[in-house]
């Protein structure tokens, strides 16, 4: 099967029911996407499928074939961090950071469909992601800061 990940095409030879998460981590070596629960309960495995945030641990590979998949490794462009990544650094919106790739991908998806979300919309968009270190206050701040950053960039 052919898979398009971070703008690159990969040929993978696995059972079609294999999860997208397993393929990303095992076959493509993209370990930035994390296993947290395998049930779609925690969001650690969030990737973008055609721009939408999805739990890759419950996404069968064949359902992602033909789509553009973006993982945390594909966000920074030419060495420049994505504004959401910058905002997470600036607000130290992590501790152990195991959940961070998932939160960043969910935030990127939110801002692409709603560039100016309010507090409630951010919470709603990120409630499928768990940060057990409890850095939610900072994640909220980072999401807001990223929205502002993107708005400024768009206006430039």
């Amino acid at each position: 099967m052919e898979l398009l990940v971070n703008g690159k095409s990969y040929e993978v030879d696995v059972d079609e029911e294999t999860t997208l998460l397993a393929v990303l981590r095992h076959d493509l070596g993209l370990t930035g996407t994390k296993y947290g629960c395998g049930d779609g309960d925690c969001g650690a495995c969030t990737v973008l499928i055609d721009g939408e945030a999805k739990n890759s641990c419950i996404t069968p590979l064949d359902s992602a074939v033909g789509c553009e998949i973006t993982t945390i490794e594909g966000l920074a462009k030419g060495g420049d961090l994505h504004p959401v990544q910058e905002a997470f650094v600036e607000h130290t919106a992590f501790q152990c950071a195991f959940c961070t790739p998932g939160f960043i991908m969910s935030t990127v998806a939110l801002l692409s469909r709603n560039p100016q979300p309010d507090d409630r919309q951010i919470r709603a968009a990120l409630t499928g992601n768990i940060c057990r270190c409890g850095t939610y206050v900072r994640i909220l701040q980072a999401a807001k800061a990223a929205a502002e950053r993107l708005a400024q960039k768009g206006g430039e």
Partner: protein
Amino acid sequence: MTTISELHEDAALVVTGPPQWAGELELREAPGPEATLLMMDRQGGAIAFSGKVEYGQGIRSGFSLAIADELDLPLDSVRLILGDTDLVPWDRGTVGSVSTMTVGIQLRRAAATARGALVTLAAEHWAVDEASLATSEGHVFISGEPSRRVSYAELLQGKDLRLPIPEDTTTKRAEDFVFMGKDAPRTDALDRVTGQAKYSQDIVVDGMLHGKVLRAPSYGARPQQIDTAGAERVPGFVMLVRDGDFVGVVCEREDAAEQAVDAIRVRWQEEQNLPSDSDFPAALKEKAKEMIVLREEGSPAEGFAQADHVLEGSYFVPHVANVPMETSTAVASWDGGNLTVWSGDRAPFVVRDELAQALDMSQDQIRVIAPEVGGSFGTKGTVGVAQEAAVLAKAAGRPVRVAHSRSEEFMWGTVRPAALFEIRSGFNADGQIVAWEYTAYHTGDRPQRGQRGADTPYNTPNVRISVADSASPLRTGSYRSLGCAANHFAREIHIDEIAATLNMDPVELRLMNLTHPRLSRVLRQTADRFDWESRRNDSSVGIGVAIGYDAGSFVAECVEVAVRRRNLRVQRVVAGIDCGLVVNPEGVRNQMEGSIVMGMGTALREIVEFDSGRLLNPALSRYRVPRINDTPEIEIVMSGDSTTPSTGAGEPGIVPIAAAIGNAVYAATKTRIRDLPIVPRLG
């Protein structure tokens, strides 16, 4: 893999010292030889070594700031090597919020030693007095003449210095800090937001296979009949390893290993008569072991006889799960008789020693490396997956990775002990507490873990504090502020009941009974910032307060809740901490916020449900941890001063939060919360 001798070859200057650890917050020297604490290479950069691991607390950053400050180096010239048993000083594990106060201090002294040596070299270089020299950004210069300077790299050319830390080493005063005491971003931030940070789950070794272990459906269950034919038919199956009750499969892929282990047919013999969660709290008293009196002063009997009021209450906290986001994972690789294990564990030396014992090897044949650890909160301190991976790798003759699934982590990781408390207090009409009898029962895997935080910080003349261990059907282990957070929940709810009995302000009642100046100060400052006085008059919400102590630090928290039947929202938290000298305020705030959110989980909804040795809710959809839409506004107040030595910041924040929320719920609803979790008990 780097070896310590390779590092030594590159080093121009090495500072050695004994490994250190804290027992009961007292600094002790650890067993074992002098270890390399810090080295400088010929380019003038520093590498520091510590057996602590980075599991989110930001210790790599904290140590880096401290070393950069003491050595007057740019921050990016400092590198940390953590948690690798072949490279770092012995360490008992990253526990008890003591890294900054023990290893942090020792690394500062090591860095100061190196700086002293560089100044001596510069004094020889210019033939001047050392007192006329100063250091800044990797250079020594002549005081008042910053242009007359020489770089550390230049001074270290051709040098091969080995220095123990001298007794009289002095570290910098707070007013001279360049990095410490100021907000600093994490030095490891970039790898964490780009997916490059390598956790144990991400370790890939050449030729690595994947193992899965057959797990019992309930604690104590033993396999009677095992049919493994189905496993062997799974594509990618490599081998099956069986040793007594231990059954593991090894496959080419992790998903194949899961399928293979699921395909094993087993008839289990399960233990009978194991308790269920509904047997608690009664089981805590029934299964109690020896009662230990921690403190007895005055005469509680006389105190109760003379008191205007006597109040009794009993309180309960259930078993709760640590739920680190990264499940326990290890990769084991054999090279002849030597074993290397990458294990996402908080205590790599403990894992090494337990592996040596279990596999009948000597410690120096085993290297344990803790990569980035995706959360611990007290769990991940056992040999579990590391040993399983080692056994499977030996059988397979290739490296093997074993990772817990989420349900395995719930069942075969560890949980926070349950506890029951019986408190009897005697107090006068003016609010003075004159008698205090406190009896606690904590389940636990090791004795006396419930003693932490059991003693009352209030000044009461007649006191008896007793704690007993009790048995649990679950695998109990450590947890953030183990025992201490539970003890504080009971005590601080009871204190609120005393205030309510007397119709007194709960802040005022606490202050009246406190004589500890740091605790009183943090309570006053927190209540002020919360605007306690005026928030009391807002009848649309409930406000609550609680205080506490842990890891040498003092904390106070005020919370505001809104309650409508079973809909309980924590809206605002103001938390004060006095942890002495703050190395990185941003780090302390982050830890406090995290502790509060985690403690909110234990207060509101978390409970491990079990029946006859089986877990009933081993999934994140059924075990409800805090999520972003539960998050209140949180403000942190720093109440310590920089002349007091640093104490813990990673745990104290969780200590008062459950009681503060319970007390706020009482203020809002007049329903007194004595048992956790709260939400199922509302409406």
